[in-house]
Every structure is written in C-alpha cells, then in structure tokens.
C-alpha cells in the first residue's frame, strides 16, 4: 500500500498518507486507538471499500472483494445459523467450488485442531461464543487463500478465551506461514502473534511506529505471557501507543 487516504462520505477523514509493505508469509498487526482507521485499512485491502487516493496492491493486482487468494475474518463469528459447524467451516470452499472431498477432509481436521471434535453437527445456537469463533477460524483456514485479513477476530471474547484462540491461530499459522494482516486493539495479542506491529495514530490515521517483533518462533502465546522479554517489548510499544493517544507525532524506526 502506498500513500493511502480515505475520507468517508460524512466527511470523516479516516486515513492520511498510510504506506505499508507486507512480505509474503509475514504476520503483521495494526494496533491503534479506537476509530483510528485500522479497519478502514483492512477493508480497503479486502476490496470492501473503494480506494479513493493512493494505491493498494494485493500481490500484483488491485484489491477486489471475493478474490480467492484472500480470506477475511471478522470480530463477530458470522456463522450462518442454519448451517452446522462443519457446513459453516466448509462454506468458503463450497462457494469457491473447491473439491468437495478435499474440503471435507481438511475441515474435519481443522475442526479437530480447534478443539471441536464431536461438535461437527452442532448448530451455532448450541455453541458458546468461543466455540463459534473457533468454527470461524476453521472456516478461514479451510480456504486455501495465501492472504488472511483478520479484523479483531478475538475482539468480542473474554480474556482467557482470547488467549486460547490466539494460541490456536499461532499454531495454525506456524504450520503454513500465510500472509496475515491482523487488526486489533489488544497490544499484547499483537506482539505475541506478529512479526511486525504497526502503531497507528488517532484519526486521521497515520503510521507512527513500525516495530519488528524479535521473539523467536515457534512461539507459544500462552508461554509468552510469563516471558520477561515479551513484557519488555510490550512496555516499549505501549509507550509509543501512549504517544498516539496523546497524538504527539514521533519518528520511530
């Protein structure tokens, strides 16, 4: 993305001069105060919003909703209540007309990995929030898209469930190293998961810090919670974020 800007029809300028490059296989998080435009960035990349100024490329082409090389996941589980867990997890592949047998096999494996063995035939109403988001995670990973866009996927969960699911996401990602653009307001989550954390300023959103996270991989999100190095990084990034809240622009490498 380069010099991206976006102003909503109400006249709210969500983004100014936002430039970011993400390497294939990189896990990048964007954190920032609420309303800073991080979801706008994601939706531009997802092709859900039209690019007004600047340029976005996914791979070599412009973003477009429905590209098969991109999978999108939201804060709300967004499961279809009339489909059971397995059908929901297969939904993406069903729409994309992937091979049915392959997809079923992959989905059953994924459901087992996210801890839902035995719940394949359960309808969303029978599942807890955490379990539903696990299904959504399985649905996202079931699609063979090399690029994953995640909009606060664990934002609506309680603290413990959030950690468990972040750990799951990390494990799934470590296996395949897909390119992830991850939006969150949870700094600890961003640091624990990412290769790089982007800190955004308040509206209109700019990048105020671009911090590589030098934690070894494979990681364990849960083990990191007790790691002093993790807390050190956290403190550093937090001070930057605090500046963002006070809206003092600073240059950080």
């Amino acid at each position, binding site marked *: 993305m380069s010099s991206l800007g976006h102003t909503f029809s109400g006249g709210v300028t969500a983004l100014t001069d936002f430039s970011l490059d993400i390497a294939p296989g990189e896990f990048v998080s964007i954190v920032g105060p609420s309303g800073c435009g991080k979801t706008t960035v994601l939706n531009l990349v*997802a*092709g*859900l919003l039209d690019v007004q100024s600047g340029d976005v490329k996914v791979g070599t082409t412009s973003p477009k*909703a*429905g*590209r*098969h090389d*991109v*999978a*999108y996941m*939201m804060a*709300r589980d*967004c499961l*279809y*209540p*009339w*489909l*059971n867990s397995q059908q929901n997890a297969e*939904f*993406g592949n069903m*729409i*994309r007309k992937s091979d049915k047998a392959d997809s079923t096999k992959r989905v059953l494996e994924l459901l087992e990995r996210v801890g839902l063995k035995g719940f394949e035939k359960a*309808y*969303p*109403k029978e599942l807890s929030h955490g379990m539903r988001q696990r299904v959504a995670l399985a649905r996202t990973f079931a*699609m063979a898209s090399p690029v994953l*866009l995640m909009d606060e996927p664990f934002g609506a969960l309680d603290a413990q469930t959030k950690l468990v699911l972040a750990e799951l996401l990390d494990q799934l990602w470590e296996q395949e190293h897909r390119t992830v653009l991850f939006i969150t307001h949870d700094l600890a989550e961003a640091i624990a998961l990412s290769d790089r954390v982007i800190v955004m300023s308040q509206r209109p959103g700019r990048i105020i810090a671009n911090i590589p996270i030098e934690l070894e991989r494979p990681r364990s999100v849960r083990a990191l919670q007790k790691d002093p190095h993790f807390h050190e990084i956290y403190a550093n990034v937090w001070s930057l974020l605090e500046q963002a809240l006070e809206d003092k622009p600073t240059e950080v490498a």
Partner: protein
Amino acid sequence: METGNIKTAWGMPIWVLRLVLLSLLCLLWEWATVRQPSLRVFVGQPSGIAVFFWDGLFVNGKLIQHGFWSILATLISFGLGSVAGILTGMMFAMSPRLEVFFQPILIALNSLPRIALAPLFLLWFGLGMGSKIALAFSLTFFIVLDSTVAGMRSVNPDHVTLARTIGASPGTIFRKITLVSALPTIFTGLRLGMIYALLGVIGSEIIASTQGLGQYLSFLAGVFNTDGVFAVLLLLAILGSAIGYLMTRIEARLLRWK
C-alpha cells in the same frame, strides 16, 4: 411451547385437568338447558350439539360435505396467496425501487376492509369457489408479502459481507443467505396467512355461497338450529387448531436450526 407433558400438583397430566374442566362446563351447560328449555334457542344443548356433530360427520355427512368445500377453497387460496406473496416479496427485495413504486397502492389496498370487497367478488366470480378464493387470497397475499419483505430485510449485513469476501455472486447471496435468513419470518406469515385464508373463505361463504361451512352456518342460524350452529363452530375450531398444529410441525422440521 411443549405444555402437554407438564404435571399438575396431583401428578396428573395437564390434559386430564383440561378435559375435567371442559366436561364440568358441559355438564353445567346441559343441566341449565334441561332446567330451562327456552335457553336452547340461544345456547343450544351439549347433547344436541354432540348428536348433530356425530350425524354431520358419520350419518348424513353434511358437515363433511360442506367442510370439504371450505377446506378446498382455503387450501387453494392459501397456496395461490402465499406463492404470489413470496414471489412479490422477493421481487421487492431485489428491486427496492419497485417496492417504493407499489407501496402506497398496496398499503391502500391492504387497509381496505376485505369483507367490503365481497359483493364485488360475488359479482365477478359468482356464488361458487371463485369469489371465496378471491377474498381469502386478498387476505393471505398481503400477510405473506409483508412477512417476506420484512424477513429479507432482516438479513444480517455481516453475513452478506462475509459471503462477498468469499466471492459469492449476488445471485448466490440471494439464494443461500437472504432467502434462508428470511425463512423464519416468512413462516410466521404463512402460519397467519393460513388462518386468514380460512377466515376469508368462511366469511365469504356467510355472505353468499352455494356450499361450504360458512353457508351452512348462516343457514342453520337462520332456521334457529342453534345446536347445528355450535356443531359447525366446533368443527371450525378443530380445523383451525389442526391447521395451526400442522404448520408448527412443518416449521419445526424445516427450521431445526432456530
């Protein structure tokens, strides 16, 4: 909803208690009409009603015969009305402009007391099936139309967004998401539409018809056969409940995920 299995304080199933209460009322009713025979003209007599009901079903078959025509008319008008209602609703959901255009006309038509159209329908379609089907159709159609439009509007926008990001075409989104999301609301409309179809048919028959339970009812009332009137009412109550039960069962089967 499942109240059939609730036990009462004495450990009896609740339906036993209901039956006891109903029998007591009938006994009281019977006793009053035996003591005061002039009451029979106004409220009939349970034993007389039972005999009329039995004869109408199994001896002379008059209730069966009239009932057949009423049910047939109800089913036809329900079928036509709901198919037309759902199709029109789908059209409105696909093209909001079409809806904006037709809305005032439809609201005006729908706020018309439908019974007021009965004389016209009689003129146009005669005393047979046509006029009652027309009246019942005019009731069912609007109910199902309204619920279809409301159901399609209630689709969760996130569900649509997600499907878009996956790459579903507008047609697929309509069939696999909008329509399925609307089903529960459409079903509520269908259940109501069925009851109104019966209402329309009976109402039309009471106004003027050559056969049907409504016509029979108004004939019996005209000759002061109060037992007969009550027997027809009993049959209508049973029919109405059966229809409601059937619709609920179908709904429960189709919408297990709800």
